[in-house]
Structures are given as C-alpha cells and as structure tokens.
C-alpha cells in the first residue's frame, strides 16, 4: 500500500546564499498512506521551521531556517499520489522554502521535528481534521540536570527520552502539531518554555518531570496544574505590601478579563491533569498521588491549558531502576499520550469547558 520515493534537494545558488555555516538538507522523502502523505526533510542538524497553509492556492509552504539543500540535486519532484502533486524547493533569504502543491484545498497538516537523525516530518491528511497544537516540555536540561537518582540517573535525560516517545506516539496516532521545548540536552528557561506554548497558540502544554524527595521512601505518580487559590492569595499579598495608589477602572477591567480567561484555562488544565493522571496510574500500577495544584513557573506563565506530570521518584531506588528501563519509559509515554488523546477527544466532542475555549481560539484565527 505504501508508495515511497526519494526527492533529492537542490544545490542551486548555494554559493550565492552563503549560508554554509547553517544546516544542510540532505534530502526529502515521501510516503503515501491511505489517509495521508508523509513528507520528510532530512537534515544534518535541527533548525527552526515554519509551516504555512495556503488553502486558496492549494499549497503548503515550509520554511527551513538557516538550512540549505546539499549540492547538485533536483529542485522539484513529482509525487502525484492523489493528494500531493509536487514538491519544489528553493533557496530564499534566511533558509530554504519548500512548496508542496496539492490537488485539493481540503487537507490538514501536522508536523513534527525528530532529533535522531535530525529531520522535519510533515503529514498532509486528506480532508479537514481538527488539528491540535501540543507542546511537550521535557523538564530541565543542559546545565540544569534536575534531580539525580541514587545510582546517578539524571532527570533531564529521562524527561527528554520520555517526551520524544510521547511525541512519536501522538504523531502516529493524531493529525496534531507536536512541538518540543527542547529536543536535545540544552538549557531552556522556565518562562521561555511557557512562551513557546503561548507563541504557537498551543492547545495544551504538558511538562514532563521526574520527582524527588529527601526521603527515599517517597514513590508514585502525580500531576500538577496551576493553582488559582494560591495565586489569588499571593496577589492579595502584593496589594498589602504594595503602594496604595490604584488606578481604578482599567486595572479592574483587565483583571476581570484575565480572571475569566484564567478560569477557562484552569478548567482545561484540570481536565487534562485528570486525564493524564488516570492513564498513568492505571498503566503503571504504582502509587497514585493524585492531581494537585501548585504555583509552578511553567504553569503560571502558560496561557493555554497546562500541566506538569511527575512520572516517578528518581530518589526512590526501585523507581530509579524502573526509570532506566526502555520498556517502562514506553509505558509512561503511552499513558501520557493516551491521556492527551482522551482530553483532545473530549474537546472535539464538545466537552463543556473546552467548547468555550475552542470558540475563543476559533475567533482568534
């Protein structure tokens, strides 16, 4: 059923572009499936990329920033699989523009960047689908190792590996756009992580962490969402300690709007937290520590439904041992992915809280 082929990228105007220090696109591949066509751009390193749907023109454009195609390759490829007609690549300022021509304006695009080997994967789906943008946030990274286990397992390595596994499952099972806040071992600031979700107008933000405690006995899984009550009391505290000058009117209106949006977002966050926590505790059969609220920086700065999942205690010797296992990581990833999928399904079928959120988002687009 699957028809595959290779597109080789062009090397035209490479010298003119002068982006030799950037990434090289070694090639592009495609595969035709019953419900979609998959297009893969192979690179030698990860680059930022932008995908645009040009529905009226029956086109999808992809800009691979700071990337230029390898030398001496053809510039276009004809696919003609009933959905995608052709793919054309050209060097533009700041990178490479790939234009995908389609036979119809009824399509859905999902995309994902995979780190090893580095590649950008695009799925063009037949027909219009509800496509979510999901930001997965592997906790810690780079100079911040996170918690360390008794035998030296580092939280940052576990969170990255699990996040990649979740991303691959979601990409296979849904038509969603999956964004990782980091796809390798690098430091990303807490506020920058939330900003990635906000800037991409994401539908959800899922931060993946490994827990720790001073006592080695602590064990189990738990999921956090943004605390409203604690934020409120800290706000009252600011008033108490702050100046008595209060420019009434504007401040109060913006506070009211903010609290309305927050409550909507809060509802989504709680639903998402419950959905993921249920799947995790069932799949892993470990201590269910439940769903909790906390004033975490990544959640506090997120403007979309956001949760932080603690998948186990690295400080507990037996849980650390389990967290080293590939099979156990797969089970964690599977559980997180199915929690996300159940949440998005209830959003599609018009789950109360999510419906209003959908409308809000729809108007914004």
């Amino acid at each position, binding site marked *: 059923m699957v028809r595959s082929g290779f597109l080789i990228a062009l090397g035209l105007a490479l010298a003119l572009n002068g982006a030799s220090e950037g990434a090289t696109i070694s090639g592009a591949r495609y595969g035709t499936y019953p419900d979609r066509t998959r297009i893969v751009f192979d690179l030698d390193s990860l680059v930022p990329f932008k995908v645009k749907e040009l529905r009226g023109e029956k086109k999808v454009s992809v800009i691979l920033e700071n990337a230029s195609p390898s030398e001496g390759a053809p510039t276009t490829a004809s696919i003609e699989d009933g959905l995608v007609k052709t793919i054309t690549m050209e060097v533009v300022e700041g990178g490479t523009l790939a234009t995908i021509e389609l036979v119809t304006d009824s399509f859905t695009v999902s995309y994902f960047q995979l780190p090893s080997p580095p590649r950008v994967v695009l799925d063009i789906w037949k027909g219009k689908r509800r496509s979510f943008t999901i930001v997965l946030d592997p906790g810690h990274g780079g100079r911040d190792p*996170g918690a360390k286990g008794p035998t030296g397992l580092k939280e940052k390595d576990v969170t990255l590996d699990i996040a990649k596994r979740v991303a691959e499952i979601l990409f296979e099972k849904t038509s969603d756009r999956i964004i990782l806040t980091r796809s390798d071992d690098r430091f990303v600031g807490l506020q920058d992580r939330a900003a990635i979700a906000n800037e991409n107008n994401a539908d959800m933000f899922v931060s993946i962490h490994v827990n*720790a*405690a001073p006592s080695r006995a602590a064990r*189990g899984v738990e999921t956090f969402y943004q605390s409203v009550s604690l934020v409120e009391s800290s706000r009252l505290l*600011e008033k108490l300690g702050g100046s008595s000058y209060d420019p009434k009117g504007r401040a109060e209106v913006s506070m009211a709007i903010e609290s309305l949006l927050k409550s909507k977002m809060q509802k989504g966050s709680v639903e998402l937290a419950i959905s993921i926590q249920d799947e995790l505790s069932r799949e892993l059969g470990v*201590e269910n520590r439940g769903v909790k609220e906390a004033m975490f920086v990544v959640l506090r700065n997120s403007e979309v439904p956001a949760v932080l999942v*603690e998948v186990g205690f690295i400080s507990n010797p037996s849980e650390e041992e389990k967290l080293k296992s590939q099979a156990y990581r797969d089970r964690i990833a599977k559980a997180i992915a199915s929690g996300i999928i159940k949440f998005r399904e209830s959003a599609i079928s018009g789950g109360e809280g999510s419906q209003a959120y959908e409308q809000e988002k729809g108007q914004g687009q």
Partner: protein
Amino acid sequence: MSRRKGRVSKAFPFLIAILLACGGIAGYIVGTRMKVKEEVPISVARLYFSDPQAEFLIPEERKMGLDIEAEKRGFGPGTCKAIQAVIEELIKGPSSPSLAATIPKGTTLRNAFVSDHIAYLDFSKELKTKHCGGSSGELMTVYSIVNTILDNFRYIKGVKILIEGMDVETLAGHLDISKALTKNDFIVKGP
C-alpha cells in the same frame, strides 16, 4: 521608768515578729523571682516537616531556648531574632524518626528581616545547590519554611525566600519563589 521598760519589753517580741514576717515575705518574693529566673519561660514553636512520602507537612512542637511569646503576638524589637531562632530549629530537622528534614544539610540562615508584614529570609546557597530536586521535594522545603513562619508569627503575612541576598525564580526548577508566598494549607496534615 519601769512602766516604760515594761511597755518596751512587751512590744519587743511583737516587733521581732513583724520584722520576721517582713523578712519572710521578702525572702519568699526573692525566692520566687529566683525560681522564675532558673526556669526560663519556655516558648513552644510549631515546626513543619515532611512525611516520608513527601506528600504532606506535619507539625512538630519544639521547645525553644528563647522566649518568643511576645514576638508571636506582634511585631517587636525581638521579632527578627525570634524568626532566626525558629528557622534554626527547622534546619536541625525533626525529632520524630517518622518525619523527614526539609532543609538540605549545610544550609544556614544568613539573615532575617521584616518589612510590610513580610518576612525576608536570606539563606545560604546550600538551600538551592544541595537541594534534592523534584516537585515534591521542592514543595516540602518551601512550604515547611513558609508555613512554619506564618504559623508562629501572626503578624507576618508572607514569606520571601532569598539565596545569598538575591532573588531567585525557583529552588529546583518548579515552584515560583520570585515573590512572597502565603501559607499553603493543602499540604498540611495533622493537628
């Protein structure tokens, strides 16, 4: 003369009795004062430590070597010293073997001061660098400090944690401590 003498001699034992009584009372008062000084008025502070699962903070009563009763009721010249003493007890860890310490070993409280009902606690770097990490570990550490201060000192409405005199975003990458925090009753279990 003899009559006078007789009067004096009659009054003498009476005077002695009065003198003795006065001395007794004075002696008694002095004695009581001494006794009070010997047994310094004991203050009890309520300290919060972690349960073994790092899910809940559990209070433990600790006898203080310092009278902090006045400081518990309201702000005074001794408040900062009292806060310092209570946090130093918290740093020592729990006396119950079924509870866990929340402050990393080697941490010291460099300074404590109060402004606008907010207690500023300046810890040494070990609070951050030696921290075990994890959301639960971090929640236990931060709220054991915050709840302990807010529970003992009614006058204080919020706690701001500083590290080596500086503002920090978090201790271990999760909980926002860039601003003063209020008491968290969700993670408290026990009396």
